[in-house]
């Protein structure tokens, strides 16, 4: 085989490979971004709040933040995401709070309901509130990669360390997978 034939055959092979990939993507309904852009994303159903998001991100303060799905929130007075376990005084004193940076704020709505908001500037993605909310409440607090902060590295250093492979690249159109709007794929598409 001469060099010209080799190059021609290689080109054909690459074209064929591309065609097979495209066909396969359509057949297996692989999510393809219309815009061709992809972002890193956390699947809240896989996340186990190990705390690595707080320490592994290349950003000095992690690009991962806690977000709140209000439609899931019970607006509880005794919030498992806000208070340390077995706290007897349900007030905003630092000694009662679970969040080490005071990023989770609560405001009285009406008896007996409270609204919880996250101050993202203070959130360091430790996931303690998410774990507390998921263990005792409805799971309305979740960790998400904020794309205004994420540098969209070619290889996400948090994804590399994530013990449950909860972080993956998704089309930018599905940038935020938040419980409530986002259903657990394992349940919606059971094998």
């Amino acid at each position: 085989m001469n060099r010209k034939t080799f190059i021609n055959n290689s080109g054909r092979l690459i074209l064929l490979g591309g065609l097979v990939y495209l066909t396969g993507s359509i057949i297996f309904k692989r999510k393809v971004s219309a815009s061709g852009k992809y972002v890193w994303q956390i699947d809240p159903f896989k996340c186990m709040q190990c705390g690595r998001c707080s320490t592994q991100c290349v950003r000095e303060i992690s690009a991962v933040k806690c977000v709140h799905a209000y439609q899931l929130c019970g607006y509880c007075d005794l919030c498992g995401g806000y208070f340390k376990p077995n706290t007897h005084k349900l007030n905003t004193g630092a000694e009662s709070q679970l969040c080490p940076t005071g990023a989770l704020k609560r405001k009285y709505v009406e008896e007996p309901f409270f609204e919880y908001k996250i101050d993202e500037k203070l959130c360091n993605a430790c996931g303690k509130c998410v774990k507390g909310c998921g263990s005792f409440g409805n799971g309305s607090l979740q960790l998400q990669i904020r794309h205004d902060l994420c540098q969209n590295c070619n290889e996400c250093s948090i994804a590399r360390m994530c013990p449950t492979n909860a972080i993956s690249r998704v089309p930018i159109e599905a940038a935020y997978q938040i419980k409530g709007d986002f259903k657990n794929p394992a349940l919606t598409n059971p094998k």
Partner: protein
Amino acid sequence: MNTRTRHIILAAAILALAASFTWWLAHDPVPNFTKSLPGSDNRPPRADSLTELVHIGEYFFAAGGTLTGGTETWPRFRGPDFDNISKSNIKLIDGFGGQIPKILWTIDLGEGHAGAAIYKGAVYVLDYDELKRSDILRCINLADGKEVWQRGYRVTIKRNHGMSRTVPAVTEKYIVTIGPRAHVMCLDRLTGNVKWGLDVEKEYKTEIPFWYTGQCPLIENDLAIIATGGKALMIAVDCETGKKVWEVPNSKGWKMSHSSIMPMKFGGRRMFVYSAVGGICGVAADGPDAGTILWTSSAWNKSVVAPSPVCMPNGKIFLTAGYGAGSMVLQLEQSGGTFTAKMIDQYLPAEGLACEQQTPLYFEGHLIGIQPKDAGALRSQMICVDPSNCRVPVWTSGSEIRFGLGPYLIADNKLFILNDDGVLTIAKPDIKKYIQIDQIKLFDGQDAWAPIAVADGYMVLRDSKRMIGMKIAVE
């Protein structure tokens, strides 16, 4: 370099060091530091719900149904023997065979988790009717679900993860209920006539627990036994007259929990064991000193306590609670008529048997319960432990079989487990391994947490918005 120059350099260095040190001392490295202090959530002083005038048992409605009778009873929370084990000889189904058991009736209820009591063919459930804004005790015919009568009173309750959540106590003569805001109502069982009412919150300055009252009342020897919190720890009220027979002073200021009073016999004494927010106590149930505290322990002090104490024959008491509290095992000891409670183990939910809402079963010397979501690898699994070491499971249901916060009981030597979403499982109660027999989705439910009641071959269960009655006896 001459001496003068060296001195100048040295002085300059000292000055620079002094200036740096002064700057370091004076500099605030966290200029935006804000203190998290109590009160920044703008929470007002505790709402004064005591101003609402509630006429307990003010109205009655004959709904037209007729009681067709029955012989068996499930007269209170955890059944006739307080153990959630039915002793009935009626043979119950072994499995579902892929088909839902015949649901005889369905009744829409206000959002809540109040379970039913059954007494000789009558089902009693304390509902909250949002349209009428009333606590309503509903008497329903077990066989056909037709409502016989209602007795209620207007009281304002807001939705807060359900409203109703208690099981009435029923005897041949009386019915005693506790509403979400601790209104106690005593009725004549047959007629539904009001005997008396007691506004515990108003009379005892009780702090109502989060998500409303979960304590189920107890009737013993025609006395209604209520753990009030507030000015008293526990009271006994004559069901016939409404007169207080005894009151236990609440010297330590313990608060009402969701836990219910459990009777226990130990050291020759019958006692009422109550797990309050603040501690646990045993109160003499009979004798000349009835109504006096036999023992207390503040070792068990959790902010939210829903499961009731599991009192074991050898004086061991198993205590458990949710919200990260874990569990504790106490050993009662008696010497010369004096009782003491000694803590023999305490651990977090991930370290042994723990339950968030339901009270574990005590079966053949073992404890069976469902782990909470913060129990690590065993989360939501049913596990069985030997009380001598509650940290090591004898068996678990396995990582593939997990449950929720729903109830479970034993009847006809079958373990019935209801999941949050209406899936009913039948397992074989066993102290060596978990043996699942069958499982079926009964209904598309949500938060099916109310205790199950079983009598005369019927099972009464509910989710947050409806109650169903079904026949589970073998035809």
